[in-house]
């Protein structure tokens, strides 16, 4: 079995609620109670107005590929034998952009386009551990 991917490490106060929610397969994001800004990556404060009053939401998991790259060479032990794999920024319909992988395709260099619609797919990392949000063609 390939070595584990780099995992989120805790304690890390800003992102811990996000990762806890992945154990329930919930992709979460925040909005500011004062100025309605969508906050992502997760933080305790609003990046637009500085308020510490915000609300967590669960995303529907639908969005589009903003951009991507197909990694042909990685020396990281978890990825080096994976073959070509796609890393992307996906823009969720709720207005936040996440780094992720695009999966469920044959050839990542030809089967992914910027703007392509995608939907959420979870990849569990181990018993009761966090799950990684990934995306596949919608």
């Amino acid at each position, binding site marked *: 079995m390939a070595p584990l*991917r*780099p*995992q*989120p*490490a*805790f*304690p*890390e106060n*800003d*992102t811990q609620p*996000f*990762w806890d929610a992945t154990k329930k397969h919930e992709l979460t994001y925040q909005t500011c109670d004062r100025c309605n800004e*969508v906050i*992502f*990556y*997760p*933080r305790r404060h609003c990046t637009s107005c500085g308020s510490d009053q915000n609300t967590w939401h669960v995303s529907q998991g639908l969005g589009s590929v*903003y*951009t*991507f*790259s*197909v*990694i*042909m*060479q*990685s*020396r*990281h032990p*978890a*990825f080096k034998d*994976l073959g*070509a*794999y796609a*890393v*992307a*920024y996906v*823009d969720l319909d709720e*207005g*936040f*952009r*996440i*780094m*992720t*992988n695009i999966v469920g395709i044959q050839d*990542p*260099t030809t089967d992914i*386009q*910027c*703007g392509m619609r995608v939907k959420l797919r979870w990849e569990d990392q181990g018993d009761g551990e966090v799950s*990684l949000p*990934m995306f596949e063609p919608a």
Partner: protein
Amino acid sequence: MPQDRTAAIVGIHEYPLRVVGSDISALQIKAASAAKALEDAGFAWKDVDAVYDTGSDQGIGGLGISEYFGFKPSIIDNTSVGGSSFEFHANHARRMIEAGKCNLALITYGSTSHSDRRAIGTAGATGGGPSNLFRNMEDPWGLTLIGNYAMVKMRHKFQYGTTDEQFAAISVATRRHAMRNPEAVKAMTDLEFVGVNEISVADVLDSRTVAYPLHLLECCMVSDGGGAVLVASAEMARNARKKPVWIIGGGEATKYRENGGDITVSAGAQSGPVAFQDAGVSPSEIDILMAYDSFTITVMCMIEDLGFCQKGEGGAFVSDGRLDYDNPGKPAINTDGGGLSSNHPGARGIFLLMEATRQLRGESTSQVANAKLAVAVGNGGQLGSRHATGATILAAD
């Protein structure tokens, strides 16, 4: 508006070797380069009264570097924003000199990245160190440094129709300049480049894809190296051994992944105009553009974001030999051979200042005729996520 004449680059030294083995350390490269730059300027070790340093080399930190050199500076600045740190340093030194706080500022860099066998572009996240939100939200998906820049190239192609051939034109011009620079030729030879010769657009497109859509010949080398730059007050500059190269404008900015943000626009879109306004010159007047060429896409973004052409029109701008040192169209680009083909030990920004200085002194191996104005624009961090862009505008005496 008269150009500023209050601070100038008066001494430079580019450490000549790109493969140093175990004979010399990063800190020793810095000290050796400082001594040579002082010799170039005609000043003494004890004249240095300001130290600018990233604190990154061999990890002794900003606190340790003055002790290592043996200086007692009145100005200590440890701005550390990756490869663009050195443009930030030069700009900061100019302002401190203008304010009368110091007279001779030393900026140094040393790295043994190649000899340490650091896989900078392809290593991926290594997992050491304290947790933070960026690592937690980025590392699990396996993005490499090269992949980060490739994502910007991909979006640039999608958004503006820029072609691989156009990106390759940057590599071709840069290699042509490298082949005229004996130190770059030795660098490529020592680093065992396949084919130390001029290259064509087809050569670039035929080279293997490291992270789609970036080809190997669109990526910088990983060398050893370093060097030193001295920035002096006008009064000292007038007593320097060589003609001063004046710092007439500067701008600094940072940019990062934002919801709905445009990844093709770098921090240079903020810092470039600030620098040009400070200098009182326009991009069309610039003879030499020393643009941080970690990858072709970095240069494309710098050209557009600093205003050499409209955003998205960089592909057409770089074609037809425009960037060559002997092309009548301005600007000539990376006339030392760049990070692509001459020198990139991990943080290239200091070399941009050096080659700009050589050009404005008339000392380049690809000398632009009658060179009067140059821009050094460093891009540090990673273009597709968080990065900093520092621009320094320089004028011949």
